[in-house]
């Protein structure tokens, strides 16, 4: 490992968290008035903004529309000032195209697309500040935005990353831990049915450890789902109080 101690002997991580501890999560729904649904999500220092438009008629060529379900269209982009080094383009590079594809796959598994044949749902996510776990922050923000837009889903989609260091699984990695050379796994989970919408890991890991790592990631996702649920409930309460007046 590149000289970086991810887990101290006392069991604390770089930013002082315990191995299974998540970063502080703050979120808000209905950030924007013009979009059909929107949400803002902070996971530690990672900040993401998600906006949902639709379901609406398929834009552009008709051939893209599906006769039995809705098309989900995702775009992932990063603000040019979101990273430590300034980015030249907000989107269109390989990494963000891949991320857009992953988001699309994740939400195709979660949204009840068959209810909206021949239509399209747009999900646009933007990273305003990046500090590790961009994918998971985006998924969580997009989930809230979809809820805000009133689009039926099977369940919340909760995503979280998990890493592995010194024989212990670490939940919700920050940027330093992600680039520190360890293994990182991102998981998107539908917590109630315990089914996995997307899992991705591209580093070497002994197969014996995979179960521990998955277990840790799933635990973290379930933790997140509680937070998301409370955000949704609180938002609904606020809205209903407002509309009662």
């Amino acid at each position, binding site marked *: 490992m590149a000289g970086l101690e991810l887990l101290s002997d006392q069991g604390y991580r770089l930013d002082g968290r315990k191995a299974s501890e998540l970063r502080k999560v703050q979120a*808000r729904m209905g950030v*924007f008035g013009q979009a059909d649904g*929107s949400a803002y999500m902070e996971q530690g220092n990672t900040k993401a903004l998600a*906006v949902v438009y639709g379901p609406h008629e398929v834009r552009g060529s008709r051939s893209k529309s599906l006769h039995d379900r809705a098309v989900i269209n995702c775009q992932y982009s990063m603000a040019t000032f979101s990273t430590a080094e300034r980015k030249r383009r907000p989107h269109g590079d390989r990494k963000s195209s891949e991320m857009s594809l992953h988001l699309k796959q994740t939400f195709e598994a979660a949204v009840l697309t068959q209810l909206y044949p021949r239509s399209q749902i747009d999900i646009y996510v933007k990273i305003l*500040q990046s500090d590790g776990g961009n994918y998971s922050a985006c998924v969580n923000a997009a989930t809230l935005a979809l809820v805000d837009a009133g689009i039926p889903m099977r369940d919340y989609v909760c995503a979280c990353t998990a890493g592995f260091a010194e024989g212990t699984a670490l939940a919700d990695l920050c940027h330093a831990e992600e680039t520190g050379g360890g293994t990182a796994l991102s998981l998107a989970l539908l917590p109630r049915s315990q089914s996995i919408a997307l899992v991705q890991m591209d580093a070497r890991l002994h197969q014996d450890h995979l179960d521990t790592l998955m277990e840790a990631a799933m635990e973290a996702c379930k933790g997140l789902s509680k937070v998301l649920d409370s955000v949704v409930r609180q938002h609904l309460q606020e809205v209903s109080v407002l509309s009662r007046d």
Partner: protein
Amino acid sequence: MASVQISEAEKVYIMHGVRDDLRVDGRGCEDYRHMEIETDVVSNTDGSAKVRMGHTDVLVGIKAELRRPRPNVPDEGYLEFFVDCSANATPEFEGRGGEELGVELSNTLYKVFNSHRSLDLRSLCVCPGEHCWVLYVDVLLLQCDGNLFDAMSIAIKAALFNTRIPKVRVLEDEEGGKEIELSDDPYDCLRLRVDNIPCIVTLCKVGHRHVVDATLQEKACSAASLLVAVTPRGAVTCVRKLGAGSLDPDSIFEMTETGKRVGKALHAPLMELLQKDESLGKKRQKVGFLA
């Protein structure tokens, strides 16, 4: 560009209202919408600001980088503008859809802000001919509801006010080689003087009158608008006619007059607000998008 389509009846309604100095949302012709300004919202940047004006939402981040100065002005730093019309604002901007508007907006911003008299570009020079600070001003459009230029200019001014560039020293060793040393103290930094930075006032010609801070609906009623960039002292740094229509000379004079008046009146409360905000220091509550 982000726009709406409205019916003839709506147009008549809006135009008659403007004639009687009463707009659809209850404002007079020279009133701005409610504005929310917050600085220091993105910690990865050297300076940032977020401005919300009605349903228009703009986020500006400024990053300073050390670069080689331009050869024709070796003793000055410079500004680079980039406007990201993100798909968040409207689905039309997806993919490369927002690029055209982005280039258009950033070209205009460059003309408005990159002048010697509004910002002391020489203070950005570290070592003439070799190193200078380049300020990358990145504007992110999150929501469009008309009057992008005004919102952007206010956000840029606020972000420049908020910008802190780390102090550097140039050390020279025996062989004449130069080395740049960054100050150890994170609070030891260079601030920019924003006293003379212009604000943009866009005036939309609706019927025989013109309105400040037009919403998309009002913009749809007007064929031409005039952009005026005004410094606090009342000097004009940039004027542009925008849109497909034409204006007669008298109304141009009238509109620049209004622009100057409104622009001058805009600066004082803005600076006051920014200074008050800063004097709160650590006590200031950061809300960002969570409010």
